[in-house]
């Protein structure tokens, strides 16, 4: 179990770093898909089984495919393939990253989160168990989410229309 956790964690961090540093847009999107699949593996380890499947289907399967479509439809010229904006922004970003991570680790240590271990007999996130709160307590957000998806579909079709009639 611990072995799988560290393996998935290494895959997540490595593929995330590779995703943001590739010159080629297609390579970046594919490394991000690897990252999302490893995150789905982490979900399984934390007993979120339905979410792991949804993550692979929706994120790695639909959102990344959408990215790849757009990246390939837009023919990029050579000067658009860049990696970094400039050395100054890079150093500032690394400093902010170090500061943020140290604050986060310090907070987790203070809250005692490093001694709370993964709960393997917690309630499992299977489909039936997840459906119970989703359709009872969280029914209103569920309906609003469906409306949100409808408006996103209509909006994206409208934005890309060539001529508004």
């Amino acid at each position, binding site marked *: 179990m611990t072995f799988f956790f560290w393996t998935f964690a290494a895959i997540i961090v490595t593929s995330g770093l590779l*995703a943001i540093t590739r010159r080629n*847009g297609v390579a970046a999107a594919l490394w991000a898909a690897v990252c999302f699949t490893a995150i789905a593996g982490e*979900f399984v380890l934390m007993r979120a089984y339905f979410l792991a499947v949804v993550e692979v289907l929706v994120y790695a399967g639909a959102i990344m495919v959408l990215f790849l479509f757009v990246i390939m439809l837009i023919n990029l010229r050579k000067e658009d393939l860049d990696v970094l904006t400039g050395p100054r922004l890079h150093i500032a970003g690394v400093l902010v*990253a170090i500061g*943020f*991570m140290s604050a986060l680790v310090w907070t*987790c240590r203070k809250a005692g989160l490093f001694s709370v271990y993964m709960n393997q007999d917690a309630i499992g996130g299977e489909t039936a168990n997840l459906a119970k*709160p989703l359709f009872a307590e969280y029914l209103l957000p569920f309906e609003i989410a469906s409306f949100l998806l409808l408006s996103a579909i209509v909006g*994206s079709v409208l934005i890309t229309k060539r001529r508004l009639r």
Partner: protein
Amino acid sequence: MSVGHVITLAGLLFTIGMLGVLSRRNILIILLSVELMLNAGALAFVAFANMHGNLDGQVMVFFTITVAAAEVAVGLAVVIALFRVKETVDTDRVQLLRK
């Protein structure tokens, strides 16, 4: 393998996404890095759902993925519409609002 370790991993992924947003000029890679940050939040939510023993965190991740999908659709539509006008995806070139 404790909750603290998962939160640290989520923070690391969030930082990686943030570095991607800050240092890339290509708007498509910026959107991709935002997706990484959203996934980092989802990872933290699932970890806390496991810690507390109820599934509220997992319901939140369900909605996070839904909203992220909608946001990507609209964001890419805007990128396509912008590309039709400006013929570039370089954010340094898109200075239409600047005086």
